[in-house]
């Protein structure tokens, strides 16, 4: 049984990122499961605005007190916004993974990639 919260209006990846549609851009963060598995997040490294990211490819790094993990883009496109607040205060990832702890916003290159993301039930099932 999966612990934690997984909002129904989000899409997910098997790498434990979430994606949220908001106008022209897609907001991206890590799931409750990811932050729980990482433990206390102490450092976040994000790309600059304008950087091209590719679905499934690394776009940044997230570090907890114990471990370093790579961040993978849920979809391809251009980085439209970066959450400077989470860079300054990485604990936001633990405190509010779906709100203040968001990481980047992507201007998506294609609509098809959004449809290919996991829905909440499929993601939660994958957590076992």
């Amino acid at each position, binding site marked *: 049984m999966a612990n934690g919260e997984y909002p129904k209006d989000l899409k997910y990846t098997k790498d434990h990122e979430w994606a949220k549609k908001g106008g022209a851009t897609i907001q991206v963060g890590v799931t409750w499961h990811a932050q729980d598995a990482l433990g206390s997040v*102490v450092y976040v*490294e994000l790309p600059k605005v304008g950087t091209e990211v590719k679905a499934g490819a690394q776009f940044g790094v997230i*570090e*907890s*007190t*114990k471990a*370093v993990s790579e961040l993978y883009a849920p979809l391809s496109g251009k980085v439209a916004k970066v959450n400077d607040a989470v860079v300054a205060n990485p604990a936001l990832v633990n405190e509010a993974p779906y709100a203040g702890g968001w990481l980047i916003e992507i201007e998506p290159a294609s609509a098809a990639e959004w449809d290919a993301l996991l829905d909440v039930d499929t993601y939660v099932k994958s957590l076992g």
Partner: protein
Amino acid sequence: MPRLTPLNAAHKKLGGRLVDFAGWELPVQYAGLIAEHEAVRTKAGLFDVSHMGEVEFKGPGALEAANRLITNDLARIADGQAIYSGLLNPEGGFVDDIVAYRFSPEHIFICVNAANREKDFAWMKSNAKGVTPVDRSDDFAQIAVQGPSAFGLVQKLCRKDLAPIGTYRFTTGQVAGVECIISRTGYTGEDGFELYCPPNQAEALWFALLDKGQADGVVPAGLGARDSLRTEMKYALYGNDIDDTHTPLEAGLGWIVKLDKPEFIGKDVLVKQKAAGVTRKLVGFELTEPGVPRAHYAILKDGQKVGEVTSGTMGPTVKKAIGIGYVPTALAAEGSTFHVDIRGRPVAAKVVKTPFHVRG
């Protein structure tokens, strides 16, 4: 299958996140690393360190036999005192770092690292003269109670007056009705005890400490907090900061080496190294640009690799990205600067005074 400590069921009951550590299943954390770390700095934390090994030297000549294996000097301390020491190979590298307890000249008790239990015992057995060491690891569980509230907590559960048991002193007695070696030692930089007890009574002792300490904010703490706490103190971790290729002089542990002792394994090399001067030193540094140093990252000077990070983290109390690593002696002085290669990005660092954390 990892081995289980006698507290395994307790960890599960308390929601500990269990991981494999040196072949043992132990909690990396319960509620969260930073909360546990802060509890130890401000109140107290309980750690299961039952995976540590214990070796005993008993009988006439016990002190001399053990003393010949270690760098520090059991002849200089009194009965009821303990010393931190190196156990070296003939090349002067660490077989392990240990704590030796002097019950009497005919009874020496040595606590060794979990990962080195078998290796250390075999080493001691094949090198001990006169007295045959006995592996007592399966006869002891060990609970570390660490933090400013630790003394009061253990005292509440113990009839014996513990005030005379100063740092690196020990006694025996009952804690919560469980017969223990009560040792004023630890690996966190805080005051506290390490309690060695029979495995079948470890759980009773653990919950007695937790129950009694609850009002004072005592929490169970995992391996994660243990590592961040010791890193803030620049306490060496075997396998990371010290190993069989590094000597105590290089590791900044000259104080545990007593070169005026008549004999110990590794002494010849250290005498020469001390005369010639070491070429590399283990230093503490902090990053002066964003990032977190981690073990095995390269240390760079003018773009060239000159050393390696051996431990690093974001220090929860010092609130800085701190690291430990070997650098050439020329770069070891406080204020020296170099870069740490973090995923291909050179990040500026400077050598600082250690421990990183100074007890308030």
